[in-house]
């Protein structure tokens, strides 16, 4: 055994450590000093503190990352990981700031602390390269999210969605752990690169295929890929809006990162790509088709998330440097757009008490700014140029078509994906039609704070500018 370098471990884990310290600080401040303060003040303080902590962690990460690894390679830090972690931290900042006026919880300190814990889980997931560490950090992430989904304790829908999320997630995690144990049995190691080396020597056995599918259940659950997606519509619809945004954004990015890492280990064997492709095709079809019949905007976003997961799975199955890069960029920009969309949904819900399609009627008259940002977000999700959604989709599909591994299936699957995104335009436009065409009985303006307007405009501008100048994205990755 090589001696353990605690210095390296600490260096790699500093962003996480900052988050942990801040989460304790948030709890302490909330419980010690703000006990008698009003709900709004407590929520504002806790959210600002949490956002500040995430920003601190992000700022530390920018200059202080290096290509090092700790614990025998189980935990790595390189430019891609650092860029992802920075993206995840940025998403957490946005989610916390956009949720600053939420009143679903009487314990804002605990809420923010849990969000920071979940973020810690995401950062670890993105950096882990060892089955055990992956499992533990995925569980840290999942368990925090289960609790967060149940956080609107007064609403039965929240508890219901959390229970479903939990039951589904618990069983998936059990399957995944079972699959990990098979992988360990086959390869004799839990370290991903060593597994890759071992699997390429072994002849393919049925037990290996079983292991692949079991692992695919756990990771498929995290990225909401069919047929392991059933929790997503209920959870997106029932969880508090910021939590749903977090599940749809940061958690997705981290899960795709780990999926890429696991794919790197399993792709030498035959079955893994096939499993991914099955899931991708099912996700594209089921996601887009089930979105057509939804009447709740949150559910539409959930179903579209399943479809987007399907697109990204194609890139992962292609597994070239370019396609992996394209998947990560896709995941980050998709997360950014979804956070914006959920922010708009939260605003509408606060004003009308509902997220049904009808609640969006006359949005452009009630608040032109909010409606305009929603237009940008949804069209970007649909992949309309010149928004960023178009560019990332283009890059992803191009990378898939160029991949040598994709010669057999690339064209067919890309055609399926493009057909799927054509279908998706219909349901996105359903929302926009309500916002811009249908008249509303209630024409009172929607209550938006300057901070919210600022963030929404910032997000919409990012979606537009990144679409116009795609080079900025690679610039972001090049910062690391």
């Amino acid at each position: 055994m090589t001696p353990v370098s605690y210095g390296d471990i600490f260096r790699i884990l500093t962003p996480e450590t900052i988050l942990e310290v801040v989460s304790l600080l948030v709890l302490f401040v909330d419980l010690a000093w703000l006990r008698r303060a009003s709900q709004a003040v407590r929520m504002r303080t806790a959210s600002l503190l949490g956002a500040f902590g995430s920003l601190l962690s992000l700022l530390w990460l920018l200059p202080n990352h290096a290509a090092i690894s700790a614990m025998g390679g189980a935990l790595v830090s390189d430019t891609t990981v650092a860029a992802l972690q920075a993206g995840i931290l940025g998403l957490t900042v946005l989610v916390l700031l956009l949720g600053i006026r939420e009143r679903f919880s009487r314990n804002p300190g605990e809420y923010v602390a849990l969000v920071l814990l979940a973020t810690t889980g995401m950062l670890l997931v993105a950096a882990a390269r060892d089955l055990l560490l992956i499992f533990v950090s995925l569980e840290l992430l999942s368990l925090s999210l289960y609790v967060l989904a149940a956080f609107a304790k007064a609403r039965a829908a929240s508890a219901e969605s959390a229970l479903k999320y939990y039951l589904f997630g618990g069983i998936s995690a059990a399957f995944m752990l079972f699959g990990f144990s098979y992988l360990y049995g086959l390869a004799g190691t839990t370290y991903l690169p060593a597994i890759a080396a071992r699997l390429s020597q072994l002849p393919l056995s049925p037990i290996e295929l079983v292991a692949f599918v079991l692992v695919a259940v756990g990771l498929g659950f995290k990225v909401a890929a069919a047929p392991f997606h059933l929790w997503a519509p209920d959870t997106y619809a029932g969880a508090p809006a910021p939590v749903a945004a977090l599940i749809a954004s940061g958690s997705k990015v981290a899960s795709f990162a780990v999926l890429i890492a696991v794919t790197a280990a399993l792709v030498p064997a035959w079955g893994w790509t096939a499993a991914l492709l099955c899931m991708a095709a099912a996700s594209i079809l089921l996601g887009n088709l089930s979105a057509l019949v939804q009447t709740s905007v949150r559910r539409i976003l959930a179903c579209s998330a399943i479809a987007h997961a399907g697109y990204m799975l194609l890139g992962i199955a292609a597994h070239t440097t370019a396609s992996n890069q394209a998947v990560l960029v896709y995941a980050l920009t998709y997360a950014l757009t979804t956070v914006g969309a959920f922010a708009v949904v939260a605003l509408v819900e606060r004003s009308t008490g509902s997220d049904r399609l009808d609640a969006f009627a006359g949005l452009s008259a009630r608040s032109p700014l909010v409606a305009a940002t929603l237009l940008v977000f949804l069209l970007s999700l649909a992949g309309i140029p010149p928004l960023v959604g178009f560019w990332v989709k283009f890059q992803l599909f191009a990378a898939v078509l160029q991949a040598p591994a994709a010669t057999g299936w690339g064209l067919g699957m890309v055609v399926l994906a493009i057909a799927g995104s054509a279908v998706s335009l219909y349901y996105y436009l359903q929302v926009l039609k309500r916002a811009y065409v249908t008249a509303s009985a209630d024409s009172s303006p929607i209550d938006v704070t300057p901070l919210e307007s600022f963030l929404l405009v910032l997000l919409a501008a990012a979606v537009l500018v990144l679409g116009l100048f795609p080079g900025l994205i690679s610039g972001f990755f090049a910062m690391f």
Partner: protein
Amino acid sequence: MSLLQLAPMAETTLAPAAWIVRNLWLIPAIPMAAAGLIALLPQPQRRPAAALAIGSLATSFLLALVAFVHVLGNWASGAPTRETISVNWLSVGSSTLQMGWVLDPLAVIMLVMVTFVGSLIFLYSTGYMSHDVNFTRFFCFLALFAGGMLGVIIANSLLLLFMCWEIVGLTSYLLIGFWYHKPSAAAAAKKAFLTTRVGDIFFLLGMVWLYAQTGTLLFYDHGAGSMEPAALQLLLGQHAAWGLSAAAAIGLLIFAGAAGKSGQLPLHVWLPDAMEGPTPVSALIHAATMVAAGVYLVARVFPLMSAGAGPGMTTVPLTVIAWIGAATALFGAIVAVAQFDIKRILAYSTVSQLGYMMVGLATGGVAVGMFHLITHAFFKALLFLGAGSVIHGCHEEQDIRRMGGLRKAMPVTFLAYTVGMLALSGFPIFFSGFWSKDAIVGAAHHWPVSQGPFWMLLIGAVLTAFYMMRQIGYVFLGSWRGAGHAHESPAVMTFPLLTLAFFAIALGLLGTPAWPWFTSFLEGRSLSLDLAGFQEPGLLPLMAATSVLVLLALAVGWRLYGRRTDTQASALGQVFVPDPLQSAAPRIFGWVESRLYFDELYAVTVLRLYALCGALAVWLDRCLWGGIVAVVSAGFRQLGRWNKSIDSGWIDGGFDKGCEELTTAGGVLAWLQADRAPAYLRTLTIGLLLLIAALVIAASVTGQVKL
């Protein structure tokens, strides 16, 4: 460093084995997979559940027939009849644990019997359980049981055998307690599980010891297995205690496990209680197959049991088995004479017949014991299914005093039952039971150690004929004493009865002294028709003597019970005309009716001891640990008071909140039980299985994986 390694299928046979040998594992795997699928079905899906269970076992039956033909072919061509496949299961450090399966005449006979009888009983169950709400669950358990039992049969490793053995034990528990809302059924299930566990502990000890001594748990491994001469020689050389060799000690430990499963004295107490389960379960598990697992285990490890015995000698384990078997045979037969529950009589008869099988193994060798096992499986399944038909037709009545005269109402059942009864009694020449039982009695007669078991078996045989005649007299002869009207059962129930009745007669042809097909097949010897087989010294006189005794016993039974005239009115008034034996010797009859007080004995000894241990544990828990907890909790309570003085409103508010949340949670749980969340999880599992199936099929089609 790899602690656990799942090596790919490493086949260690020398020549490429036939398809059926390589894929013998399918026989237990198919019913197990069916059980898994049935478990995924929602409760109302009755028809698919039954179809899956019956279809899977029928497929296994066909595969077993293929295996049977394969072994027959080897036998006819003079090739070795035992083939094994071994797989590296896991390696710990430098040692590797292997598992595998074996195909030999012993296994293949059992495979055919279990799958055939099992299929018939499955079919019968669709009729018998047709009104049960939990029909789907029932077939899930049945299929799992069949898979476990078939696993026991093909196992070539004591460990694999033990694992399947435990599956069988688990499903037995689940099926005995199938009607768990009846307290008696729940208690019987618990009793069966715990009693067999007593035997299993010894079995496990024996297994670990065997592994420690020989380094392998495979039975046959081209000379390196634990049942092969090299390992046996090693074991004989090791001395355990009290002058026993390690081979003898391990043999005795393994026999303890077999005794638990096969209801031998003193671990027989669970078997009669197990009749609380549905009758098809009694037929399948507690008569035909599971209880035979113990006998099969002894037959499987027979080389170990008989290690070191020269001509005209025997070994310590075999002596113990012979005496215990004989005592069980006699005991079961005595108790069965004084029972009034139709299934309980058959249960004690099973206990008794299992004793016969054990004596057969110990005194005559594998073939003698196994032949009785096979014939018994058929006629006892027949009797149980017949009893089920009677119970079904008499509206769930089990007391034979409230039956009578059913030969008119249920002619088909009567015919089949009579065949079963004559086979069990050992009616001369025409019934299989005569030949198999006679072989055992003959073997016991020639046993060099003692004539004790022989006389016990002889008395047992007389009693067997008597109590079966008594049962027939009570149930089918005389006049109807029950309430309502009895009716014949549907064809789906009578068809298996008639099929089994045919085999209860025909199987006898396979084991006559003139044409000993069964023995020759099991021992791999050549076979010819030779009437000189009857001229073995003492054979014919013995056969004549047992026949006369059996006929006498039947006649006495007929005399006493054939023409009972008690009326319906007296039975309905709960005043029964006393049994003739009861009026002759009321005190002895009372003892026997109370099953010689075995349960009571255990209640005042073993259970009292457990109760004492339990009381001690409670005392420790209350006073010692409870005290510690009380101190800790007092400390925390103090802390809580201090906390409350800081903020008194918090706790109250929290309590209200808690109540509110409980209400909400209750609503959510109610919603979850409305089957949507289960449906999600079912979809998840089905998706998983489909994906695995798709990948494996695709991989084998493209040649990536060889199945």
